[in-house]
């Protein structure tokens, strides 16, 4: 049992955050302009000179917490371009297209479940032979999507925890994050580290 990845979408259908853990099929980097800034350094387009994208600016410039102080920061592990990982990405979708497909699927299934039930019923999850997708939608239209192993039970409570904990603490209460801006994602070091800690602490992780 394991957790593969987490996507967060805002109410404008844009992917504003992405993080993954035990994925073996890594997505290719998004094309230029394919996704917002500050979604995830691991999948953002490379800058024109070929360098990895710069870290998100939403962490205070007066950041006195560096990784040497013990804060675990789960980013900055971008492999160089000729890395075998990058090579293995060639057979998979670029991240921007993948993100759109995920959004399309959850939106269609959400509408389908609403239509079939005739009530305001939420779509919660679907399962294939190798993975399971869970959806939690907030009242404000943010959609938390998690991909896990096919054998896991419902994980909506975890998505709720992410919303109630890290998301409120490091995104909503962070004045440096412009929410609902349609140009910027919500990635920042504290948010990422906090989610990482929460997910790694789950019994279904590993």
């Amino acid at each position, binding site marked *: 049992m394991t957790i593969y990845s987490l996507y967060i979408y805002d109410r404008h259908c844009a992917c504003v955050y992405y993080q993954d853990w035990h994925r073996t099929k890594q997505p290719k980097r998004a094309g230029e302009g394919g996704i917002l800034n500050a979604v995830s350094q691991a999948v953002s387009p490379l800058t024109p000179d070929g360098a990895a994208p710069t870290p998100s600016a939403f962490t205070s410039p007066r950041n006195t917490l560096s990784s040497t102080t013990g804060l675990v920061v789960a980013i900055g592990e971008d492999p160089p371009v000729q890395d075998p990982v990058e090579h293995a990405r060639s057979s998979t979708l670029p991240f921007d297209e993948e993100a759109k497909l*995920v959004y*399309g699927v959850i939106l269609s299934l959400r509408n389908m479940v609403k239509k079939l039930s005739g009530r305001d019923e939420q779509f919660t999850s679907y399962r294939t032979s190798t993975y399971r997708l869970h959806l939690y939608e907030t009242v404000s239209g943010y959609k938390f999507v998690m991909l896990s192993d096919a054998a896991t039970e419902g994980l909506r409570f975890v998505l709720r925890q992410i919303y109630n904990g890290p998301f409120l603490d490091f995104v909503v209460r962070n004045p440096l994050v412009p929410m609902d801006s349609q140009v910027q994602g919500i990635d920042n070091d504290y948010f990422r580290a906090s989610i990482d800690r929460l997910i790694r602490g789950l019994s279904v992780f590993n």
Partner: protein
Amino acid sequence: MTIFSLWVINKAGGLVYQRNFADGLAQLTSNEYLVLAGTLHGIHAITSRLSPTGSSSGAQVIEGETFKITILLTATGTKFVLLTSLAEATAEVVLQRVYEAYSDAVMKNPFHTPEMPIRSEGFDARITSLIGAGQP
């Protein structure tokens, strides 16, 4: 433990059989069922491409808060779809039985045109004995 509805979707995404067995879900027009079946067909294809690890089948079970959709994809591309309550544990088994009934009562029927809507009393009778009479 309720079975709401059974659909058969042909390999092109067309709804060739649809029958309701219990109340609990919205009553839709046949046109709306056709659209939903087409949507399901498309989603099913996309879900197999989204696998984070290895190759994957399409969606097998889709869950809402009070009901679930169980999908059986056969080797020929025909999909059998069962809408049941969340607690229904026998959905996969029922779908296998439906597939058997389909093979016997539909595919062996020389008057049936493949990929076209199923109008067969024999199939209807087999489904009735399998799942129940429900609504006509």
